[in-house]
């Protein structure tokens, strides 16, 4: 065990300055930006605290979680008056404009995002624990100043940080040798955000080599989501399964497809995902490093081929952190990836532009043109966004290629021994 391991991660001098700089950046942003999604989730939490049921399946889990957060911060908020006038609830049943116009909006936004900051501290700790000691500073800088992390959690204000924390926890449990528990936690992440369910199979195929073991791990991974569906059905919520199946989010991974014939389509993500799973089935790979790599491939495939909401991209960041500094070209591609993602966000118009800053001056930021409206004056914005999207998808595949090539380069016998020794040291 190295000297660095002796000191607690957050006490290490060279990490602390980056941690504090990142924290400062987050604290500066937190009170001033808002998206209606942040209000909508806390509004549902308010309904729960009010004793009113909220429809939803997996989503109920995060509603409950936010109800807990809201209960804790209730005394610090003008709780009774902050939810707006019922007659003015138009968008998502929320009086969003009324909310951002309130004098207490900065306080509410800061407190609403505070639990995510606490979860991020845990996520960073997990991430650094999963990183080789000599790479920790670089990984910490990559994470703390990553625009996707800051946007998703502190500008947009989405709870995906909790999902990321659960994903990292499941990897950490694998590292500690608790494979079954890691699948339980991964199942918990799927309960919050459904999509992490795509990682259950790579986990099962890499962590076990036998058919029975793989089936057991798969069953454990699917258990939380299945239990919530059947639990709901047992409670008499008959429309639950139908509601779940008809969720538009479930069709996002099927967005890129080839039309073969009437009622015969080839879904690109499903096709490539199946291919990767069969590859793992045929060529058994084991170890945490392979698990991280293949999870990264799966998410890269997902983002390259599926429609997604911009804040989802934070799921990719911890996996990118594992590989971003080797080879050197990775960072250039990653910068392009972020730039292309920024263009991708233009399709949400003012909702992901001026409206995010509306608490600062509602009238002004409500009226500011979005980048897509501005581009549309000179060139069709749809085409421009489409070009950005295409580059984004290409960067995903390029990153997958770079990670694959690095592994191929290391595949020589000497390198393999070197890598296993390195892994043994930081374990």
């Amino acid at each position, binding site marked *: 065990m190295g000297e660095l391991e002796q000191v607690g991660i957050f006490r290490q001098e060279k990490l602390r*300055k980056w941690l504090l700089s990142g924290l400062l950046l987050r604290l500066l942003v937190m009170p001033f930006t808002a998206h209606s999604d942040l209000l909508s989730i806390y509004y549902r939490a308010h309904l729960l605290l009010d004793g009113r049921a909220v429809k939803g399946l997996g989503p109920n889990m995060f509603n409950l979680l936010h109800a807990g957060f809201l209960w804790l911060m209730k005394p610090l908020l003008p709780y009774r008056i902050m939810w707006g006038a019922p007659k003015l609830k138009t968008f998502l049943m929320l009086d969003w404009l009324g909310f951002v116009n309130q004098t207490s909006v900065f*306080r509410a936004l*800061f407190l609403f995002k505070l639990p995510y900051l606490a979860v991020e501290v845990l996520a960073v700790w997990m991430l650094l624990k999963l990183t080789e000691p000599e790479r920790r500073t670089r990984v910490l800088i990559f994470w703390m100043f990553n625009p996707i992390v800051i946007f998703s959690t502190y500008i947009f204000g989405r709870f995906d940080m909790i999902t990321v924390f659960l994903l990292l926890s499941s990897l950490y449990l694998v590292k500690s040798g608790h494979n079954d528990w890691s699948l339980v936690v991964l199942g918990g992440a799927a309960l919050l955000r459904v999509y992490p369910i795509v990682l259950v199979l790579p986990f099962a195929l890499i962590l076990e080599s036998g058919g029975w073991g793989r089936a057991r791990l798969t069953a454990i991974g699917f258990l939380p989501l299945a239990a919530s569906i059947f639990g709901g059905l047992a409670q008499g919520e008959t429309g639950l399964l139908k509601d779940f199946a008809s969720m538009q989010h479930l069709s996002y991974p099927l967005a890129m497809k080839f039309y073969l014939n009437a009622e015969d389509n080839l879904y690109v993500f499903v096709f490539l995902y199946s291919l990767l799973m069969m590859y793992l089935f045929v060529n058994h790979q084991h170890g945490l490093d392979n698990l991280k790599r293949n999870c990264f491939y799966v998410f890269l495939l997902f983002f390259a081929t599926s429609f997604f909401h911009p804040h989802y991209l934070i799921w990719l960041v911890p996996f990118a952190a594992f590989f971003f500094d080797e080879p050197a070209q990775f960072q250039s591609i990653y910068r392009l990836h972020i730039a292309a993602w920024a263009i991708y966000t233009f399709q949400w118009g003012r909702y992901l532009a001026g409206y995010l800053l509306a608490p600062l*001056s509602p009238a002004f930021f409500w009226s500011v043109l979005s980048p897509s409206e501005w581009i549309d004056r000179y060139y069709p914005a749809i085409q421009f966004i489409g070009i950005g999207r295409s580059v984004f998808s290409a960067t995903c595949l390029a990153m997958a290629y770079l990670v694959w090539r690095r592994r191929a380069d290391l595949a020589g016998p000497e390198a393999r021994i070197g890598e296993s020794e390195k892994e043994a040291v930081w374990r």
Partner: protein
Amino acid sequence: MRTAAAILMVLSLIIILTATGCVQVPVSGQWDFGVNKADIYGRRTAGQDFYVSDRNLTRIDIFLYPSNLIKPKQRPRVHRLAWRRLKGKYLTLSVYSLPERERLVAYKLPVDKIRTARMHIFPFKPIAASKRRRFYFELKAPSLTPGSAVAVKITDHNRYKEGAAFIGGKRLAAADLGFQVYIDMTSVILFHSIASRLEADPLFMAAWGLVILLVLISTIMAWRRGRLVT
């Protein structure tokens, strides 16, 4: 690094100043409630007084309905004829300052441009001295008759508290037209608007400022210590 930061700051400043110069911001009005109409024709005018909080009043949007000559499911020939009859007829918007009743703006909108029931834009040169002042706008269409009148949306719920509607010159205290007034947002107004928002919750801002200060001091100390170690 410092040069890059300086360039970034200058660029941001240019973008903010440019953006603020082009943004027309709604400052007062109401238009989303009520479905009643008030006809405008001959000597029957429609007006509204209103308050403007900032300088550079530059635009008024008013919810207008097309002429009574235009009916749904009209035969194409009748429809064409109706539009032809409206050619050369105008709806005039006049904006007056109060209490002087000095006419500041006159804008003529061809009646045949009012094709659907929606907010119609009346832009004009910014009125610099509009800050914290009252104004009155009036719509008239002397060349129209009751049969060819256009209409303006009106609600009787007293939705807009800082003024009232006037129909035929008569004030209706509980009624308001469907309208929205805009100013040209300058960077000074924007900074003023942000500052007034920040002042609104002093307790939170003080607590947040303290947290920021503490973290900032810790960050500077951590960086200094880091330099000493290396």
